[in-house]
């Protein structure tokens, strides 16, 4: 089974702190990590390989530094990696990113399943996975919380919904985007860490992909950021005081006054 996992390197917001004075994010010195949802995608890819054989190829589109995200995936069991990187890819929105990743996956050869994280924690769009599937003209299932079975080239997976989950069957090749519930990612193994150090990671640019220059980067992006601003800080709250029973009564009457209860 040929498994492709698409990942993204994102700024780590775990250690980010709020500036007490301005109420905005302190942005200095933020390190880069593998997008948290992609960790589940990598793990699921490696588990499928362990069940069905084959290999896991990790692909990322990003700056040359994203190489470290790919090596992290190899240390957790992926077999090889491709870095899709070119100055001309910069500024891509979800449509241009979907096109570029689809080109890279196509160039990588035959595949059975493509796994992506539900969304990246920087953009929070959840659009690239389905977009890649559309560009490759294959079906997809978003928000997968469990792969129930893969038999006779048919995959049955559980799609998480607001009110429960749907069970969907799809023929391979197909793309899935996964949520946290699907698995618990493993830690890197010693062997994996050695492989990740030694791995030769090819870098593919627009030329290698044979990409249409009108469909990549900012040029190929229909959406444009007009402005970026900090949201107004939440007005400071009120600390209730007094005995517990008094505080409870005060709270309830205040909520009633505000007509929320």
């Amino acid at each position, binding site marked *: 089974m040929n498994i492709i996992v698409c990942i993204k390197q994102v700024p780590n917001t775990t250690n980010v702190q709020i500036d007490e004075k301005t109420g905005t994010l302190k*942005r200095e010195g933020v390190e880069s990590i593998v997008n948290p949802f992609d960790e589940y995608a990598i793990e699921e890819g490696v588990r499928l390989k362990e069940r069905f054989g084959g290999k896991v190829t990790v692909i990322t589109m990003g700056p040359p530094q994203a190489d470290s995200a790919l090596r992290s995936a190899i240390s957790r069991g992926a077999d090889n990696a491709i870095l899709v990187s070119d100055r001309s890819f*910069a500024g891509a929105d979800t*449509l241009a990113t979907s096109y570029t990743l689809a080109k890279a996956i196509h160039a990588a050869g035959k595949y059975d399943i493509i796994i992506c994280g539900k969304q990246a924690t920087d953009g929070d769009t959840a659009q690239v996975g389905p977009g890649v599937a*559309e560009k490759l003209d294959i*079906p997809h299932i978003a928000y997968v919380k469990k792969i129930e079975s893969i038999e006779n080239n048919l995959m049955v997976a559980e799609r998480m*919904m*607001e009110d429960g989950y749907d069970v969907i069957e799809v023929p391979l090749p197909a793309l899935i985007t996964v949520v946290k519930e699907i698995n618990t990612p493993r830690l890197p193994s010693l062997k994996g860490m050695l492989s990740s150090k030694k791995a030769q990671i090819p870098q593919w640019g627009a030329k290698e992909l044979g990409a249409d220059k009108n469909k990549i980067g900012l*040029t190929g992006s229909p959406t444009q950021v007009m402005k970026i601003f900090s949201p107004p800080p939440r007005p400071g709250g009120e600390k209730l005081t007094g005995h517990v029973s008094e505080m409870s009564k005060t709270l309830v009457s205040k909520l009633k006054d505000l007509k929320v209860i």
Partner: protein
Amino acid sequence: MSNEIKIITEKCTGCTLCFKECIFGAIAMLDSEHLLSDGKKVKKLAQIDLQKCTFCGACVQACKKFGAIELKREESAVHLDMDTTHYKGVWIYAEQRHGEISPVVYELLNESRRLAEKLKVKLSAVLLGDKISNKAEDLIHHGADRVYVFDDPILCEFEDDSYSELLAKLIAAEKPEIVLMGATNIGRSFASRVAAKIETGLTADCTSLDVDINTRNLLQTRPAFGGNIMATILTPKHRPQMATVRHKVFKHAKKDDARKGEVIKKNVEHSSLVIRTKFLKFIKDISAKVNLADADIICSGGRGLGKPEGFKLIEELAEALGGAVGASRAAVDAGWIPYSHQVGQTGRTVSPKLYFACGISGQIQHLVGMGSSDIIVAINKDAACPMMKLATFAIEGDLYEIIPHIVKSLKER
């Protein structure tokens, strides 16, 4: 020409404003002594790492005062010759689940009615499903001028393949200028597929919308970086302009039984549909009495509960309020409650009218999932934790003592 951005050395005062603004970490402050145009000597100089830069323009705005950053963006070339004037009208996708219109649809009708009036065009809704034709009038009563209905047993359950193909074809034929959907699980998956099919821009999870009546551009404002920054996004040269919209941000449309509109029934030609996905069954989440996404009131518990039994207390509170039960990642990871209840970065994003955070300190990953709630009540032993500072009402103390009192007061009201 490709994108270009540069620092004009003789204008850069080394103030670090741009450095602080760059969320991509693409700006570094170099120790570089240089002269400003007025002859003043400064010691720091901003430098842009072009490998990391996404040309978003945030630094240019931060440097407005000094004008030391110059950005030249490449013109978007695709569909440059597209005649956007042929595209008229505002559309919404009337999502239904198990035959019922999703609540977010009525919020979309309300907001898009305003946009349609500003643009002086019609508001249309698109309804797909099985035995749902009777819902069309309801959409008209809530603000739609026209409803396109695809009613066919094949559309009984949402499937990306069939739904996206039908909507993409209808868009291509009718040419609306704006298409909005709810940012639900269905909407996010479906909208992306449709936008990729018709090669137009799609903006996810908008929390504010407006239109520029001169350019007819849709101003799509959405949170990014987990709500720490807001971005206004345009789709200037492509039509339709597509966006998904966050649930609970806009008010529910008022019903007017006297409103009249047009219902257009569309045929579903089975032979032209390529359907690869197959819906097998739906399993309802029985652990949740109230659906988190639709709830106006959410009571969440976190690490501070200390034990799984703590959720009994949270459930009592939720029941007294008629709300849903949420949880922080810590509580879910401890196995106290299923993942479907998790609020935050790796869980769900919610924006209820009232959010109770019980024993939740307010890690950034949790805050991004509920920070847009109207009113936040925090109950925590630690008065200094971020949630207590952020909360509209903060109660310091032992939640095991406080919550029963609140439940009692609620029952007495």
